[in-house]
């Protein structure tokens, strides 16, 4: 990016594009050039552990999946070589390319440059780069990967042997205030380390894994149980100790680590491999990036986000998502990306759809009365298939197969002119089934389906045979057997093609309104964002007032005045003409499907049926009512939320308190609720800082198990510590005890706690005890889940479709979630997730129709015996027993997994496009080759 001019809604961005030396439209990603390229150099994608070529695909899932040439190329350096040009049959190599400058006009910008892993060379004591068997977690990640330097084998660089004893050192470069390190917590390392431990044990369960850690910050959804899983494995130790690297054995290259335990004191232990769990730092060249875009950075070099809108930067129209906001894990990155997208949509809504044009296809030919006429196109993929598989002989053999009326070879079937050829042949030869024998359907099936549509043929009449990934690539060294196998694959494809049926995808209309259940910050934010992008929203809140839990919060650690923020948000919601607020409202029933939902709501005795195309569940969480520590019996014992409220009204108990004790993890991280409520540690620190501000003389104690002030919140933890707040760790086996006693005429709450390091019992006499009462799921979540046909997780919180891939979607199409209903979270996280959910809703509602796939299940009523096995097998509620007792499939809900097919005792239900007949045809054809 060279420079950015203009303003929100109208930016001109000047980009400099480095030459790829490969013509993108021509390169097919066949990688023959890579094989022939003579230049080897350390592969940056594999952390320079293994070698790559000067021309290569960046990594196996790169988009686009085509090659580029880097600076190590001999031709670029000395005008020598040029072998790639010679071997590329697509003519894609172009050394005449030079750097291009281009200007793009855009209305909004999203900055998502990600992060840079911390470089442990900044602190010499880690010996990274010096000891061969000290690696970073990023190195280790590649070592474990199937596409990594050793094809998924974990090997030491020094002797290429499998390590038997692996140690991880946590917080490398993080949580340290000194030159070369970062003060903040990198937020993701605890859990990724646990993942690496689990994967290591999966690779080889004999490996001993040792993790040297500070607090275990398992604050995310399902993280606590994940940690427990890792910790419980045999041969895995989690040791809470600072650890340092002492020496390397000159012979074995093993690494000695020094650490200490309460029982054994300081000791040394030798490991075969030491992994440094490095933290996250701002992207490289961040200052220039910030300057180019005119956005402010914070002290750590991450973007300075608005506390009330975490995806907004200091420059209007420029948004941010992902780890550039600060250390962020994948789910949060994904929903912040959705949120940033939604922000752009809000800004540019009036231009929505203006650049889109509709494709028109010829009328589909009715082939029902025609004889089978199968055409087969066998692709050379340049030399990729052609030099291993004898393509002409495959074509020759295929011509002999039944119903095949046409077969030919193509250099690249996917090239634009080849696809046009296919269209022409279909029309000339009046083909009614088409087989393309080329590569994986994952990438190119949509293209070839489109080709069929262009020729006026039903798109489901296409079948692909993967003779590249499944044949020429894996059998490069057994050429003589590759051709017969390719023929087997094509024969199977032809057999299946002969049985294919034409299927129709159908359009469902979309009711362009949304329902948001829950009027807290999550619900209001989502509703407002949807309304601001032109769609009516029903906002349903069961209380008389909007605001939810945030009504009880005063400020955030980021400095947001929560009360003012909520007042403003409520005002905006009420003022927006498209938001219909229903308070004191109860949802009593819901039905329908994506694009066409109906929800019955009871508002003060009146029943209304709301019609909407999308639903957002934003019902928040409740506060646990503690039964322990004298809560409810002694008015000096309160929850953190109550403490915050008391502070706000200048409660005398606090202003005059000589001592306040806070007890963490009340009502969670126990057998009843085996999760971490995520926000309480930061909440305690926030309240402690506030207490110190209004009553500096007060002694403040925080009794904790692990301080989980993840990310940039770590700074507040340190600040509290610096201001004299005392943090005392306890273990769950020895929970603190609280009793009301009189000490020298003073009535106090005596808190007894055993310090696990000193092994000594401490007694604190406190005037007020505050409990970190967990955020817990609402009691009626199961009913809500049932009404809206969505899932709950084991903790009782709503369960997203996929924790990383779809963190604000439910598996049920058209239903989304955000806020604490999904899991406890901080206000900024809630806002970001709510915007993300709104973004997903708008993406759905901006279409007039949704397309339902043709490959869905269908029931033969004659055969159905009403046993209901299919109903039980379907995880999407797509099958029901209808009025006549027979199974009925709602094709809109059917995802085409076909599980119902294999439980049906009469074969009455079948998945279209994947029928028994089609498979049986393939099986028979596979075995017909002998």
């Amino acid at each position, binding site marked *: 990016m060279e420079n950015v001019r203009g303003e929100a809604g109208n930016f001109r961005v000047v980009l400099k594009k480095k030459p790829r030396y490969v013509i993108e439209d021509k390169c097919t990603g066949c990688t023959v050039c890579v094989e022939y390229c003579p230049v080897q150099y350390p592969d940056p994608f594999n952390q320079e552990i293994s070698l790559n070529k000067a021309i290569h695909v960046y990594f196996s899932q790169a988009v686009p999946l085509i090659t580029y040439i880097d600076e190590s190329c001999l031709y670029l350096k000395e005008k020598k070589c040029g072998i790639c040009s010679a071997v590329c049959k697509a003519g894609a190599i172009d050394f005449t390319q030079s750097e291009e400058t281009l200007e793009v006009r855009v209305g909004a910008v999203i900055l998502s440059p990600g992060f840079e892993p911390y470089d442990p060379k900044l602190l010499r004591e880690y010996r990274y780069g010096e000891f061969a068997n000290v690696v970073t977690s990023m190195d280790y990640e590649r070592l474990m990967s199937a596409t990594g330097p050793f094809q998924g084998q974990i090997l030491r660089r020094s002797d290429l042997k499998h390590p038997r004893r692996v140690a991880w050192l946590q917080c490398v470069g993080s949580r340290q205030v000194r030159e070369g390190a970062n003060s903040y917590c990198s937020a993701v390392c605890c859990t990724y380390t646990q993942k690496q431990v689990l994967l290591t044990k999966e690779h080889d369960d004999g490996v001993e894994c040792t993790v040297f850690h500070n607090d275990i910050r398992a604050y995310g959804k399902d993280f606590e149980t994940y940690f427990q899983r890792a910790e419980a494995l045999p041969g895995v130790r989690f040791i809470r100790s600072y650890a340092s690297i002492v020496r390397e054995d000159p012979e074995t290259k093993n690494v000695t680590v020094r650490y200490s335990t309460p029982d054994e004191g300081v000791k040394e232990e030798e490991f075969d491999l030491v992994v440094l769990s490095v933290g996250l730092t701002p992207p490289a060249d961040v200052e220039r990036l910030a300057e180019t875009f005119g956005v402010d950075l914070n002290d750590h070099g991450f973007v300075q986000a608005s506390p009330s809108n975490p995806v907004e930067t200091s420059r209007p129209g420029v948004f941010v998502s992902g780890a550039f906001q600060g250390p962020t894990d994948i789910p949060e990155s994904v929903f912040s990306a959705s949120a940033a997208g939604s922000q752009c949509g809000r800004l540019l809504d009036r231009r929505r759809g203006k650049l889109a044009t509709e494709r028109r296809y010829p009328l589909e030919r009715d082939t029902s009365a025609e004889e089978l006429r199968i055409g087969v196109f066998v692709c050379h993929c340049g030399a990729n298939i052609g030099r291993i598989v004898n393509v002409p002989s495959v074509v020759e053999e295929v011509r002999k197969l039944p119903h095949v009326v046409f077969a030919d070879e193509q250099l690249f079937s996917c090239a634009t002119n080849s696809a046009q050829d296919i269209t022409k042949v279909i029309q000339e030869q009046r083909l009614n089934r088409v087989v393309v024998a080329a590569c994986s359907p994952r990438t190119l099936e949509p293209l070839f389906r489109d080709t069929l549509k262009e020729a006026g043929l039903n798109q489901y009449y296409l079948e692909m045979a993967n003779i590249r990934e499944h044949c020429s690539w894996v059998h490069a060294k057994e050429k003589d057997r590759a051709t017969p196998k390719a023929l087997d694959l094509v024969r199977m494809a032809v057999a299946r093609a002969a049985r294919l049926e034409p299927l129709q995808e159908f359009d469902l209309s979309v009711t362009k309104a949304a329902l948001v259940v829950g009027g807290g910050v999550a619900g209001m934010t989502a509703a407002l964002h949807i309304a601001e992008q032109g769609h009516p929203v029903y906002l349903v809140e069961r209380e008389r007032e909007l605001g939810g839990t945030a009504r009880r919060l005063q400020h955030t650690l980021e400095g947001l005045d929560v009360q003012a923020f909520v007042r403003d948000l409520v005002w905006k919601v009420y003022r927006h003409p498209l938001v219909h607020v229903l308070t004191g409202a109860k949802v009593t029933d819901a039905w329908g499907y994506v694009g066409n939902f109906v929800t019955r709501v009871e508002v003060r005795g009146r029943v209304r049926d709301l019609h909407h195309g999308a639903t957002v569940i934003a019902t928040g969480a409740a506060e646990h009512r503690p039964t322990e520590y004298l809560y409810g019996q002694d008015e000096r014992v309160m929850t953190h939320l109550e403490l915050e409220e008391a502070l706000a009204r200048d409660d005398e108990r606090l202003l005059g308190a000589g001592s306040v004790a806070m007890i963490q993890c009340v009502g969670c991280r126990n057998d009843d609720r085996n999760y971490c409520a995520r926000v309480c540690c930061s909440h305690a620190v926030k309240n402690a800082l506030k207490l110190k501000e209004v009553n500096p003389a007060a002694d403040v104690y925080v009794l904790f198990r692990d301080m989980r002030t993840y990310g940039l919140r770590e700074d507040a933890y340190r600040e509290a510590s610096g201001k004299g707040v005392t943090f005392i760790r306890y273990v769950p086996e020895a929970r603190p005890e609280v009793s009301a006693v009189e000490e020298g005429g003073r009535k106090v709450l005596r808190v007894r706690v055993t310090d696990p390091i000193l092994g000594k019992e401490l007694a604190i006499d406190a005037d007020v005890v505050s409990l970190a009462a967990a955020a817990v799921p609402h009691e009626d979540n199961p009913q809500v889940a049932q009404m809206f046909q969505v899932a709950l997780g084991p903790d009782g919180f709503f369960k997203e479709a996929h924790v990383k891939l779809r963190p604000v979607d439910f*598996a049920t199409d058209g239903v989304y979630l955000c806020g604490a209903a999904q899991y406890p979270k901080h206000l900024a996280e809630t806002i970001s997730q709510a915007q993300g959910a709104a973004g997903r809703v708008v993406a759905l509602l901006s279409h007039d129709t949704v397309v339902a796939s043709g490959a869905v299940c269908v029931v033969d009523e004659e055969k159905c015996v009403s046993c209901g096995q299919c109903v039980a097998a379907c995880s999407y509620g797509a099958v029901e027993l209808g009025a006549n007792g027979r199974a009925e499939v709602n094709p809109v809900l059917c995802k085409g*997994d076909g599980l119902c097919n*294999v439980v049906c005792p009469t074969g009455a239900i079948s998945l279209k496009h994947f029928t028994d007949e089609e498979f049986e045809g393939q099986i028979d054809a596979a075995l017909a080759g002998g």
Partner: protein
Amino acid sequence: MCTGRVDLGFVLRAFSKGADGVFIVGCRLGECNYTTHGNFHALRLTHLCKRLLERLGLDPRRVGIEFLSSGEGARFAEATDAFTAQVRELGPLGRSEGIDPDRLRNGLDALESIVPYLRMILAEKLNPGLPSPEAYDAFFASGDVDRVIDEAVVEKWIMARVALLLRASPLATAEIAERLGLSPSEASRYLAAAVARGVIRYDLSQKRYALGSVE
């Protein structure tokens, strides 16, 4: 489509058509990108299939299953090679195990004919419930599967085999027993049960069993 779509009928058909081994590959257990977890169904099917092959005198290692992610090409190749090598070592289906080809065909065809029934058994009786690898391991390591096969499958299977034999020609008890590899008294028990159900009849004139009920 999901691995859960793999039907017992497909696996049996492959064996009938001359395959010496069948290998199923699905996504990694517990890592379903949907809510389906259909690979557990494939796992159940594999377990059942192995036991049924055993009953036929075939080596259960002729059916294999592996769970891999799409990023594990190398492991896929490794697993496939290992399975292929194993099947190669086991040799041609039936012949290596010393099973009479007719008896093998009869056994496999009979199994295929009761696939709809076996689907119900799989769904109802061989379902450990929770989709967790641990629960599955425990369930299939227990004797429950063999018990279910003894109680709910064997008789049905033998009847199907008898029906297939009689479709060709009427046979005497001793002939049937011999072809099924049963003792004559065992065979008699099943035959009597089949007569009672009206599936077959004893033709007094031929002194042989034949298809159909007594008129």
